[in-house]
Every structure is written in structure tokens, then in C-alpha cells.
């Protein structure tokens, strides 16, 4: 007797087990499963810090999310969904991974003394103290209270500030407040590069 359509539909299963039901041999697949070295990565959207174009990037980090493990950046690529760059990056952006991982990046302040040929490492406290002392000395010596016509100007032309595109909005706000309070008039930023 020929089977009915109802009989045929009864031979059924759902989803992933179908291959085994068809009669495919999954032994090898299970064996290979044991040797798979699978890493978990997370993709995080971010913005390239180099210039004011603000290209979108996707940063890949790996790690098992354990509390005592710091996730490691393994790859950075352009974000194809970002309306500004549509996945493209300039050479600086394309090497962004190195901004985080390169062993030659500077992580401590350094100073090269007048007449010196080498850079020497100093502590953050010493660096900040030296910068503050030099700024105060320069300001005390060169501050202009009145101009040649006797107008009160209270300005400092011997110190200038230049910022970078990695500076955040909040940081730039503080910079303007600080510099203006010192009388600095020459403020510049390279974020238009």
C-alpha cells in the first residue's frame, strides 16, 4: 500500500537534528567539534580619535569576560554603517589598533633638558610641577596689562595653546576657561586636519 501524505508528514523533526535524521554521519563533525579553537570577540562601535572628520570604527576585543581579565583589542576596522565614512579609513585610522597595542607608545612623561640630547623619564608630579613653574615664570615676566595706547588689555602673548582632535568637548571647555584666565590669547586646534 502506498503511503499517504499524512504518513509522510509524520516522519518529522524540527531544526538542527534534521541532518542526523536524514542519515548523514555526524561522528566526524562531533570529533572536530572537540578540536575547534573558538574565541569570543565583542564588536564595539567607536569614533576614530585622530581628526575632526570623526569616522566610525568597529573595535574587536577578545576575552571571556571574566572579572579579573582585561579584554584585549585585536582588530579595528571601519564601520560600514557609519554615515560619515561608510567603512573607509585613512592610513592613521586603519592603524588605530596600534594606538592601543604598540609597545613603542609613550605611557610616561619625558623631558629633554636644555642642551640635552636624550629624553629622560620623569614622574607625573614632577612634570606638572615643572610645567606650572615655567608657566608662572613666563607669565610673571611677560604679562601685558596695558597696550602702547594705555588701554587695559590684561593679555599674555608669550604662551600659546594648541589642542588635538582627540580632545573631548569637555576637555576643550576646561582648556578655554584655564587659558583665558591666564590671559592667553593664542588658542589653536588641529582638529580640522
Amino acid at each position, binding site marked *: 500500500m502506498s503511503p*499517504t501524505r499524512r*504518513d509522510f508528514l509524520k516522519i518529522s523533526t524540527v531544526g*538542527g537534528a534534521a541532518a542526523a535524521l536524514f542519515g548523514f554521519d555526524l561522528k566526524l*563533525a562531533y570529533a572536530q567539534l572537540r578540536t575547534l579553537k573558538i574565541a*569570543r570577540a*565583542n564588536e564595539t562601535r567607536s569614533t576614530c580619535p585622530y581628526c575632526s572628520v570623526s569616522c566610525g570604527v*568597529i573595535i574587536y576585543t577578545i576575552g571571556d569576560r571574566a572579572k579579573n581579565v582585561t579584554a584585549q583589542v585585536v582588530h579595528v576596522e571601519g564601520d560600514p554603517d557609519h554615515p560619515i565614512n561608510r567603512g573607509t579609513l585613512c592610513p592613521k585610522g586603519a592603524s588605530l589598533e596600534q594606538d592601543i597595542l604598540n609597545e613603542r607608545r609613550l605611557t610616561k612623561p619625558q623631558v629633554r633638558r636644555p642642551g640635552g640630547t636624550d629624553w629622560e623619564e620623569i614622574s607625573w608630579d614632577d612634570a606638572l610641577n615643572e610645567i606650572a613653574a615655567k608657566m608662572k615664570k613666563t607669565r610673571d615676566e611677560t604679562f601685558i596689562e596695558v597696550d602702547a595706547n594705555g588701554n587695559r588689555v590684561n593679555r599674555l602673548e608669550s604662551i600659546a595653546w594648541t589642542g588635538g582632535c582627540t580632545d573631548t568637548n569637555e576637555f576643550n571647555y576646561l582648556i578655554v576657561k584655564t587659558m583665558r584666565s591666564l590671559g592667553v590669547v593664542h588658542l589653536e586646534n588641529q582638529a580640522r586636519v
Partner: protein
Amino acid sequence: MTARQTGGAEYDARIARAGRLASPHSAATEFLEFYKPVAAFQKKLRANIAASSVFGSGSALVAGVRDELDLTVLLPHFRSYLSVIEQHAPPALAEAARQMALLPSDSWIASLEAYWKHAGTHDQQVGAFAQFLPRAFLQPYAEFRAALTPRAPLVGATRLCPLCGSRPLLGVLRPEGDGGKRFLLCSFCSHELEFRRILCPTCGEEAEDKLPVYVAEDSPHVRVEACDTCKFYLRTIDLTKDGHAVPLVDDLAAIPHTLWALEQGYSRLQPNILGT
């Protein structure tokens, strides 16, 4: 009749890729060896559909992919399809094809029409055999109709195929700039639609820490893009890592990935034609 309508080159690429992957992917050799004659049949069927008097003019269809199932074009090929399956499939599936061949033609029609209606939408409730047989047979027809259906601009992030309404089978990352743009590959008509990265196509989760991507060391172009919120995953073939990959075929070769994802508690949104 254009190359786009016959789809010959696409099928040739799939068959060739299956041949190339069969040897290095020993766990999938049986699957890929079976897929080759199925794809060869699909190629012939697609050419026959394109050459049929109904569609021979090559004019664009007005209706959607799923609106019409012309069994006068398809039915004459169904018996030879079943015999291809019987000849090359593993025993249980071959037996199912043999039994299907014994059924009267109105049962074939009912089976094909039912699957045509529910493909990629409610077919997870359909049995494996009752799903495979019509799916592999109807796919060339769905692909052919999709090739002729005009594309409307997409609004918002739809996760279902705009042409036939089916769930996505795969994600495909294609090179765009210095990254990879994600497309969803329809599980039925193989249409690709743009879809945002870092967004779950099942539940719409956007939190980056809930959307892990798992990649195996020896096959970096196969990604398991999981969602820890809904516990579904999307298999994605990354063409920026392997430009020779053919998503439909590389998916079949990634059986260990399927088993691994199942072990981790993730379900696949839509299995491929071989049920993995």
C-alpha cells in the same frame, strides 16, 4: 533569457566550491558530495524555468516572489528531482524521496503548495523530510522570481526578506571601505538585503556586550554571531576574510560550528537545506 535569469554561473560557483571544500572539510564531505548533484539539478531546473514560455520574455514581474506558484512549469521535473535525491542522498532521506515518488501527484502539489506558502516563515513546524524535499526543489523557482522582481528601497531595518518575507539563512560580510558591510541572505529566494552590524536580526538587541561573535581559529571567515538576549545566532560568512567563499556552500561545510553553537545553548534562526 539573461544570465541573471538562468542563474547558471551562480550554480556553477556553488558546485565548484562544494567540490573544493569537500576534501579539506572531512566532517562535511558527505554533505557536500550530496549537495553537488542537488545543485546540478537546481541549475538545470532554473534554466528550464527561465526557458519556459511563461517567463521566456524576460519582462519584470509585477507581483512579489511568493504570489504565484506555476506548477505547470515545475511539476514535470519533480519525479526526476526525487530520483536524484534517491540516488545520492543518505539512506533515510533517499527512502523519504522514494516514498514521496510513490504518492499521487495531488499529494506532490499539496506538499509543494504548502511549502511555497510557509517557506522561511512557519516551516520550523514542518518535518525535516517534508521540509527538505520541497525546499530544495522550489528554491531555483524562488531565486528565479526574485531575480525578476523589482526592488523597492528599504525603509528601516527589516530582518525578513522584502521580496518573499522569509527569515534570513545567513549573514554575509562584503568588503566596504576598510570594513565589512553585513547583508542578510534570504533562506528561500537567496535575495540579499543590507542589515546593520551589531544588531540582532532576531530580537533587535543592540547592546554590544550581548552580541558576541565567535570565530574558530582554522576558519576565520565563518562567524557565529550570537545574541545572549534571545539565544539565537546568525551564521555569517565573512568575504573580507575569504573572498573565494560561496556563502550557501561554506555554510554547509560549517557543521562543527552548528554543533558547537547548539552546545552553547544557541539556536539557529533558520537551518540550511540540509537541516544544520
